[in-house]
């Protein structure tokens, strides 16, 4: 009885609302332009990477337009992105999802930067049935909610630094010790992405029965982690792992340099985005950096060529980069997926586009892209690279590629 009345109310309410709110026919395709919507962190704590992301989107959009745009139904359309500033807050991002869809009539979305913001936007776009291809939200929890309209071109975040633990175990074995003798110190920013990276490490450490001796969480605006690093210095763990977006990497590198920490293995995220190899070459020597993409990758596509072609083109468009962060690369890749999806579906219908995206199976300069039923890209591996004494990033494929213990020359 109760559920019946609920359903009745629901039905009546839906009916009356759909009558009143018969959404105004807003333009998602204006003339010969297809409009993608995106929320980007232009201000606030994620704005560094927000900018990397925006440039990645813009670069790909310009390239596709230069190459003749997107062909749908025999006609060529240009791409264009409508941006809003989400101010790095999930509250704003959630509002923006509704605003882009309801107010601006956007039906095709690109993702914001960061897992927290994607978490806030995904339920909304899902409810509206608007496909969102995101490039910067890596937290696993995004892909266990059963979202049908959320697709991510990147690998999930628990894969970021778990290989560091595997490498440590392999090195311990090679040195004739038990992997369980390895001690791990870690410091993570208190945000969804970094905590998910942490989860991956905790799981792997558990597998080898390793001991986690330091487990600190860094506040978002902490510019000093000397207390944590003093602990590291006192305990002398075998592995140190830090993750906290660009500023976490910059702060950690600066203070590792200052305290001349000699931890044999140091793992980090966002090394490239924070340019640690340029700013602290001595300390950064031997850092293990997780990356979604490497510019030496042989993968290629017809829009950009291979990874190093994209890299060169991007540097030409934005000369301020000496090394390009992978955040920009994956943003460009997300735009490519949209382009191919439009042409594969040959339609502007959200549902058909969604199916076209789900069926994506393409090679790009960023790597192979094929989505699982949950929406994450399962065709692309994560890469692990080590910074050498000259500031180069060298790929680590097997444990033998790694310089161990790292040779920091303070």
């Amino acid at each position, binding site marked *: 009885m*109760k*559920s019946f009345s*609920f*359903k009745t109310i*629901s039905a009546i*309410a*839906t009916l009356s*609302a*759909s009558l*009143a*709110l018969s*959404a*105004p026919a*807003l333009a998602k395709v204006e003339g010969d332009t297809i409009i993608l919507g995106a929320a980007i962190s*232009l*201000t606030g704590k994620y704005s560094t990477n927000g900018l990397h992301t925006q440039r990645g989107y813009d670069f790909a959009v310009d390239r596709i337009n230069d190459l003749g745009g997107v062909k749908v139904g025999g006609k060529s359309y240009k791409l264009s992105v409508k*941006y*809003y*500033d989400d*101010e*790095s*807050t*999930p*509250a704003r991002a*959630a*509002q923006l999802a*509704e*605003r882009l869809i*309801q*107010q601006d009539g956007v039906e095709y979305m690109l993702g914001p930067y960061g897992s*927290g913001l994607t*978490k*806030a936007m995904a*339920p*909304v776009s899902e*409810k*509206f049935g608007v496909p969102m291809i995101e490039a910067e939200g890596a*937290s*696993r*929890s*995004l*892909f*266990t*909610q*059963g979202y049908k309209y959320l697709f991510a071109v990147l690998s999930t975040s628990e894969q970021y630094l778990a290989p560091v633990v595997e490498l440590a175990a392999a090195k311990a074995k090679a040195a004739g010790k038990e992997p369980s003798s390895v001690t791990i110190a870690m410091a993570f*920013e*208190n*945000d*969804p992405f*970094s*905590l*998910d990276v942490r*989860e991956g490490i905790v799981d792997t450490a558990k597998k080898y029965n390793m001991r986690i001796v330091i487990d600190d*969480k860094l*506040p*978002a605006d902490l510019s000093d982690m000397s207390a944590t690093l003093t602990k590291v210095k006192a305990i002398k763990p075998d592995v140190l792992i830090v993750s906290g977006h660009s500023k976490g990497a910059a702060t950690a590198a600066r203070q590792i340099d200052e305290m001349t920490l000699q931890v044999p293995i140091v793992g980090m995220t966002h090394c490239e985005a924070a340019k640690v190899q340029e700013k602290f070459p001595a300390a950064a020597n031997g850092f293990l950096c997780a990356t979604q993409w490497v510019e030496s990758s042989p993968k290629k596509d017809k829009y950009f060529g291979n990874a190093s072609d994209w890299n060169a083109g991007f540097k030409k468009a934005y000369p301020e980069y000496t090394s390009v962060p992978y955040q920009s690369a994956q943003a460009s890749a997300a735009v490519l997926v949209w382009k191919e999806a439009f042409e594969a579906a040959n339609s502007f219908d959200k549902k058909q586009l969604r199916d076209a995206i789900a069926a994506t199976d393409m090679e790009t300069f960023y790597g192979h892209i094929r989505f699982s039923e949950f929406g994450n890209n399962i065709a692309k591996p994560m890469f692990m690279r080590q910074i050498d004494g000259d500031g180069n990033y060298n790929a680590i494929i097997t444990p033998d590629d790694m310089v161990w213990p790292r040779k920091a020359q303070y």
Partner: protein
Amino acid sequence: MLGRRFLLYLLILGAGLAAPWFYPQYIQQMALLWIMVLMASTWDLLGGQMGYNSLGNITFFGCGMYISAVVQIAMFYDVAAYTSAFGAIKPEFTDEQYFMGLFLGILAAGFGAMLLSYLLGFIMFGLRGPYFAIGTLGIATAAGQLMGTIDYVGGGSGISMPFFPWAVEIRALFFYGLCFFLAAVAHLLLRWIYSTQFGLAINAIRDDEDKAEAMGIPTLKYKQIGWAITAFFMGCIGAVFGNMVGFIEPVEVAFPVATFGIFMVAMALLGGKGTLWGPVIGAVLFHVIKETTWTYLLGWQWVALGLILIINIVYFQEGIMGWLQRKFPEFFGITIDHAPPDKDAEQ
């Protein structure tokens, strides 16, 4: 006189109810507008009417949000499992579960925040002037940081709230209705309070607390009651906002000290503090300006906002209501006896 007031309220009620049907694309901004109105109005109960400038009312907003989240989830799932699973379980809420949880969650949020304000009052109300402002600001900042260390509620990973079960259009309407309802109730309640003896008593506290105490007003009790009313509404609206956003997280969503926490004060000042309508007008104006600059001045909106705040406070202290009252005193039934205003009342 009553007729005119009554008509005005009827007009606002009508506009509030009709607006979402005429401008469905703006429904979410309008919901936010009512939240802003509520925040500014309830801030003014302490800041304008009682002379206690709190910068930490956002504490109740955030605590309310978390209380309701815990209540909504705990009724049907184990919260720790829900938050620590990193989404590994996908909880389903039936319609009844959702609405019952939401209803109880909002109530619990209101009363929980009230209790919190009562307890905080013992510590905070001994502080006066800027010390109260800074102390409350500190509490709000610390609350966000500390909430992030509690793994039970997900820590820095936050909580994904149960999602509204029906169509998105209904969802928008539903939350709009809740915000409007809460703002209206708060407004009417405040209107009534200001007309009672309690209102006079808190004004007395504002004008000279020591004298008020000497006259036998139990100041601490009155201050606590005042803050409890504010806290109740902030808790409720926090719960509603958390469900509107759908994903809550301690520093940015639940305890946005530097945005909502300061905005509510700025809005009350813009409209004119110490008046019933000032915060409402200020909130409307501020919100419209904020959303407009946000749309058209991409990346520059905060510069604009900072400038507005400075100009407002530096050059337009009295606020809109103050200016209106000075220009058209008869309309407000104010008779002027040319006594100099008591400037250093607060010193």
